[in-house]
């Protein structure tokens, strides 16, 4: 696992995912790593960032001292607005989500399976969990992209043949960015779209719980 240090940084994972956003897309960014995408330079593409709490068209994290304490993204961070922004209430925000207007939702996850299932609401111990907007987004966005560490802190793979944790939605994940590269669930295993700088195929294979396929 010594290759991990040579992989993508957290911001690089977000940048790599953001590079996949199409011009004109409406993009929902979940709490944690995905919110870093709103800091990525998107060039001349028109991207509309949507946050589950009803903010349509936000931009980068607010500079220190310039925060509006009543304007936050899904992670509770103070963000800025871009021209054309609008605010709606929670029911209208999830109407946008369920109504199929979100071109892609970017989420963190504990596990992703080769068949596109993923798990991000219960870590396994105890009762309950933290669902937030993940189940609505996962079931209704046109695409689900994940940003996640390739392995757990104890080194166990997070890209697996089948989810052991309770799933958030089934068969929906299209793309996964980890510190080791960019991967696509492909049924029997994961297709390697791209390796992170300095990361070799053997290291990825060793850190992945499911086969790598062509």
């Amino acid at each position: 696992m010594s290759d991990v240090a040579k992989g993508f940084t957290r911001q690089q994972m977000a940048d790599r995912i953001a590079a996949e956003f199409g011009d004109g897309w409406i993009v929902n960014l979940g709490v944690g790593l995905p919110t870093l995408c709103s800091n990525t330079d998107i060039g001349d593409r028109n991207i509309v960032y949507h946050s589950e709490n009803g903010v349509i068209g936000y931009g980068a994290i607010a500079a220190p001292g310039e925060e509006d304490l009543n304007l936050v993204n899904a992670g509770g961070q103070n963000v800025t607005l871009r021209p054309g922004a609008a605010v709606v209430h929670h029911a209208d925000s999830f109407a946008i989500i369920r109504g199929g207007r979100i071109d892609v939702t970017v989420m963190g996850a504990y596990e992703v399976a080769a068949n596109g299932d993923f798990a991000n609401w219960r870590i396994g111990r105890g009762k309950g969990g933290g669902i937030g907007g993940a189940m609505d987004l996962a079931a209704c966005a046109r695409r689900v992209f994940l940003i996640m560490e390739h392995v757990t802190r104890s080194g166990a793979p997070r890209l697996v043949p089948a989810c052991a944790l309770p799933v958030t939605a089934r068969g929906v994940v299209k793309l996964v960015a980890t510190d080791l590269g960019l991967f696509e669930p492909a049924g029997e295993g994961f297709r390697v779209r791209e390796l992170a700088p300095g990361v070799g195929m053997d290291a990825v294979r060793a850190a992945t719980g499911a086969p790598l396929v062509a």
Partner: protein
Amino acid sequence: MPGKQFPSFAAAVADIPDGATIAFGGFAMPGTPFNLIAALAEHGARGLTLIANTTGGAQQPRMPDIGMLVERGQVRKVICAFTAATRASDVLPFTKYYESGEVEAELVPQGTLAERLRAAGAGIPAFYTPTAVGTELAEGRETRVIDGREYLLEYALPVDYAFLRARRADTFGNLLFHRSQRNFNPVMATAARIAIAEVEEPILPAGAIDPDAVHTSGIFVHRLVEIPPPPAGLWPQKRQERVRP
């Protein structure tokens, strides 16, 4: 019809009986009725069913939240989108009460929670949603295939009281929210028998808000309390970013 302005948070929550169902606006800091929550803690009503996005306690500095009412033994059940933290390294104050069985919880996807509240306010007793199909939350529940896709049946979630926080109000009870303050507040107002709003700016005379700009009509809002400046009143704080362990 008596006026809607109440002299204190304590007065605005004074009639809340044991066993009431109460919804709390707020998503992270914005739009959270900190002062009304604190007044409810002081008031002491027990056996409550509380509805909110989260039980609180994940962010610092900690502000009055549902978890505090749980810690005071006032709560029978919570209905929310988070009963545990999403980060493996975090533990919500609420979690141990839930794990021990002292308090019940109903975990609801956030969009379903918002829609169930909206449905209650809109006279829609039940609706179908694609959310949570195929997950543990759908186990044993009624589903229906419509145009080839499977949907889950969800029921309206009416509440007795809604606690709201707004930027601006007029004496009729019309509310304006600033930015992401809005969140759950408008739908909770419509779902409630009695909606109580804490308001950041001095209450305006009726007619001072453009009818086209109103976010929540005063027909849904029954009580208004002006928030005093700090330290008497509670206001959103800049979040302290946690250092990743």
